[in-house]
């Protein structure tokens, strides 16, 4: 059975990536195992299909282990068996097109949100998206953070029209569930309870190569969204002040100090904003 290289590789890829196993996929393709024996050498120790199955087993195991590492809290919620079935379905729907294993799981949160598991654990999509965001922020672009000294050099008359720019390694997630509580529980091995259902904005950022997260209230969420939209500092104050009430000026100063301390803003006015904001389902 002589196949062109592309035909051979397509056939092998289909068999290796089948989560049902090589034999089942062969039946699905109406291919007898003898056909594979005509392509691949078998011997007394291992037949051709068994040899191919070594690759199929390794394929699934390798990607499963990567995704377990990327989504430990999601795994803790579902347990090993359900997670394994989830990943089998996911890889069938989203075979990797990424040179790096980092990219393999990037569609998993959306996949979960539409999966039947979302009926059993309605917060699971939020949780997976938060775990994915931690990875993306970890690998996001570097940029020098804006410093207090830089801001202090800006004349008072320019502040109203001043535009601030978010650091590339900053993201805000809008969640329907307080899934951030589950991240700390995931590693403990304890039972994972359903988190409180409450709209929550979670800020994720990287500073000095470490990834952090915290909840932000409505005013800070609004302010960060306006920065992302390249609105001026004046417009930001105007929008946020009514949310803060009487102490608005001090609150905004405090917010700005915290952003500078955490490195949420980038230095340089000519950079495009890259804040990631994901609306949760």
């Amino acid at each position: 059975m002589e196949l062109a290289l592309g035909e051979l590789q397509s056939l092998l890829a289909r068999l290796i990536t089948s989560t049902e196993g090589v034999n089942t996929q062969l039946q699905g393709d109406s291919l007898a195992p003898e056909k594979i024996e005509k392509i691949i050498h078998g011997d007394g120790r291992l037949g051709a299909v068994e040899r191919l199955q070594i690759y199929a087993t390794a394929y699934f195991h390798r990607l499963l282990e990567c995704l377990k590492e990327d989504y430990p809290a999601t795994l803790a919620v579902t347990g090993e068996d359900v997670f394994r079935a989830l990943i089998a379905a996911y890889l069938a729907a989203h075979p990797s097109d990424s040179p790096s294993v980092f990219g393999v799981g990037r569609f998993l949160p959306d996949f979960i949100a539409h999966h039947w598991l979302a009926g059993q654990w309605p917060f699971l999509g939020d949780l997976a998206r938060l775990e994915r965001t931690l990875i993306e922020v970890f690998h996001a672009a570097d940029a020098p953070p804006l410093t207090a000294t830089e801001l202090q050099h800006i004349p008072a008359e320019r502040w109203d029209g001043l535009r601030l720019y978010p650091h590339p390694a900053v993201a805000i997630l809008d969640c329907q569930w307080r899934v951030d509580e589950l991240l700390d529980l995931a590693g403990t091995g304890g039972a994972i309870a359903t988190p409180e259902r409450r709209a929550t904005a979670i800020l994720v950022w990287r500073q000095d190569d470490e990834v952090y997260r915290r909840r932000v209230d409505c005013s800070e969420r609004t302010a960060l969204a306006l920065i992302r939209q390249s609105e001026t500092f004046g417009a930001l104050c105007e929008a946020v002040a009514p949310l803060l009430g009487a102490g608005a000026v001090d609150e905004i100063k405090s917010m700005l100090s915290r952003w500078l301390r955490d490195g949420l803003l980038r230095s340089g006015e000519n950079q495009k904003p890259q804040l990631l904001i994901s609306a949760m389902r």
Partner: protein
Amino acid sequence: MTFRERFSDLGYGVGLRREHYRYVTEHRPAVDWFEIITENFMVAGGRPLAVLEQVRSDYPIVMHGVSLSIGSADPLNRGYLDALSEMARRFKPAWISDHLCWTGIGGRNLHDLLPLPYTDEVVHHVAARIRQVQDFLGQPILIENVSSYMTFRASTMQEWEFVSAVAEEADCGILLDINNIYVSAFNHGFDPVLYVNSVPPERVVQFHMAGHSDHGTYLLDTHDRPICAEVWRLYELAVRRFGATSTLIEWDDNIPGFGVLADAATQARRRAQNALAAKTEGTDGAGFGRTAESSRALDNLD
């Protein structure tokens, strides 16, 4: 100057893995060089790149890829090559290597190193693509023999003939993975000594050494345990044939403390020095000709 002579002998190094980032950057351990998995650093920013910057300032590095898919029937991935080129420009590796295999088709990546049929047609296909990559990068690359669990009836030559033919036609180097030779020799029943003795010395620039697991009917290239005695003996044979050659210890799963890897690199250095000394003194007791009879010599090396 032969192809091999265009490259420095880097000595004895280990793979740079995430588990050792802190140790390596804080202690600057006494190993000669580091090899990175290129794709692990194809990210926009963050700690891996910061660590690599620091490591690069203290050690030579080599960029070793797993997703070039040089044997695929797909067109070369231009986006991947752009990223590879950018990394090479930034980190200035001693050289760039990848595997003589295919890793995907139809735009999909199987994240595995899959073997090719050993035919003249595939030699031409792969060699032409290596030349394209080398032209794009502006530098020669090394290709590594992979461990395999299947071979194709369409093959018309042995694996070592295929590796040699591709390297000659592409004018590229060979990263000879000694453990892979041993694993594939067991899995397919060929003579590992014949393999080592058949690869053109002027093309071999680097060795890989790693551990594998024994599954009874086959060996699996797991990189998760110490290098076994038989692979060390094959390494000593390779050193006698090729001379002192940059050697890299790979360990990718069940990763131990850095000291274990450093000790393996030290052991490689000692074994290489002893093997070369024995060769010089003519006391190695084995001719290691290019024939299959030499297979017994592997058992007699001790």
